């Protein structure tokens, strides 16, 4: 057990039905680290990220978050957020979506407002704030979803192909945001097919294949 470890995965194996969708002998993500999941389609990246956010279960083996088992771990919901590969937004405007997330994280009105404006600015969605969230384009939706997660201020971010639908501007925004978070000590785990993103932002790469996390320089996964 490592006091520094945010995630500690051991002997993990998860099946949706019969087939193992994600397995991992051992993986440790340290505080402030940035880890990229790469691998072919269907290799288990999304499954692993969801498992690490407590969205899937039950599984064999163990995942601990901040030193305690992930199940019913209140820290998990307070400190980490997962963003879907193809995110959905709630009914209402974009502003409502951000405000809702901020309310859930119990920010005071003034701070919430400031964070909201800041995130909108950084992700280039200020002009979308009063648009109906359900009616955005694919890339706009992804921007808002990432902005929502970042605004919510979790210091552990699990991002599933966060730039896949974005244009170059959005892509740049996410890159600079992730770089900033990294500097400020946040822990990042993200999946990506875009190699330049991985090269630029990851301290470490975990490769997936056929449902198995198979290698990561500096990581413990065999």
């Amino acid at each position, binding site marked *: 057990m490592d006091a520094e470890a945010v995630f500690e995965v051991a002997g993990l194996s998860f099946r949706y039905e019969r087939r193992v969708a994600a397995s991992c002998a051992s993986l440790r993500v340290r505080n402030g680290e940035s880890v990229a999941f790469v691998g072919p389609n269907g290799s288990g990246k999304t499954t692993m990220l*969801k498992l690490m*956010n*407590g*969205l899937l279960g039950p599984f064999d083996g163990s995942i601990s978050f901040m030193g305690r088992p992930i199940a019913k771990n209140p820290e998990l*919901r*307070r400190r*980490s*957020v*997962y963003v*879907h590969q*193809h*995110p*959905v937004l*709630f*009914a209402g405007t974009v502003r409502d979506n951000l405000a*809702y*997330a901020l309310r*859930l*994280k119990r920010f005071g009105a003034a701070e919430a407002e400031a964070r909201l404006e800041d995130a909108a600015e950084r992700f280039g969605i200020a002009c979308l704030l009063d648009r109906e969230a359900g009616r955005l384009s694919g890339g706009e939706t992804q921007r808002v979803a990432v902005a*929502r*997660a970042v605004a*919510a201020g979790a210091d552990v971010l699990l991002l599933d192909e966060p730039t896949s639908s974005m244009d170059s501007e959005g892509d740049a925004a996410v890159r600079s945001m992730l770089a900033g978070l990294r500097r400020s000590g946040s822990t990042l785990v993200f999946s990506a097919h875009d190699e330049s993103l991985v090269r630029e932002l990851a301290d470490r790469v975990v490769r997936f294949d056929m449902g198995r996390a198979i290698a990561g320089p500096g990581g413990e996964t065999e």
Partner: protein
Amino acid sequence: MESLLEAVSLLVGGDRETWWTIATSVRFSLWSTVFAVIPGVPLGAALFLGRFKGKRAAVALVNAVMAVPTVVVGLFVYSFISRSGPLGSLGLLYAPGGVVLGQAALAFPLVAAMSYTGLQKLDPRYGETLLTLGAGPWRRLAAIIREGRYVITQATLAAFGRVAGEVGVSMMLGGNIRWYTRTMTTTIALDASKGEFERALSLGFVLLALALLVNFLSHLAVRDGR
């Protein structure tokens, strides 16, 4: 249809008793719907969100309860509100309160079942997003109800239709007392038993028109359901 014409003349004729009966029906139905929706929608949403043993059985039970005839629901409620029942002292029997209570009991499983069914098709990512953002069970319930508001409007309308159109409970618990608990449906049943089939049919059309009106009003309320 001549009964359509008669329906119009019934209304235009402005028979005071007919109007009174219509108003009573509307009042009873609206209140019953409210009292069916208040527990029914959260139950439906909770069934949708919940991950517990026996969930299938609970859903099946809610579905099955819909098959219980209005008369039986009436009898069941009767056994509570009759003078010798536990709630006897409230004086609900043969009074508006009894009808509303009975009809709410009748419609509540329908609301729960329809909410649950409708929400089924809601994308699972909604629930996951709520969870990951740290929403507790109550917030999730509220948010899911909000996302599913179109479905829930539909369930509410169905409940309104169910109570506005039912006879068994109104008869048994209200007693069809003139100027007190007589509604359109009990009037219709009475007319039918008197052999006044034409009048019964035309009151049926009035009821249909009423339901249409309620549907249109609800459309105005929830514009962009889709």
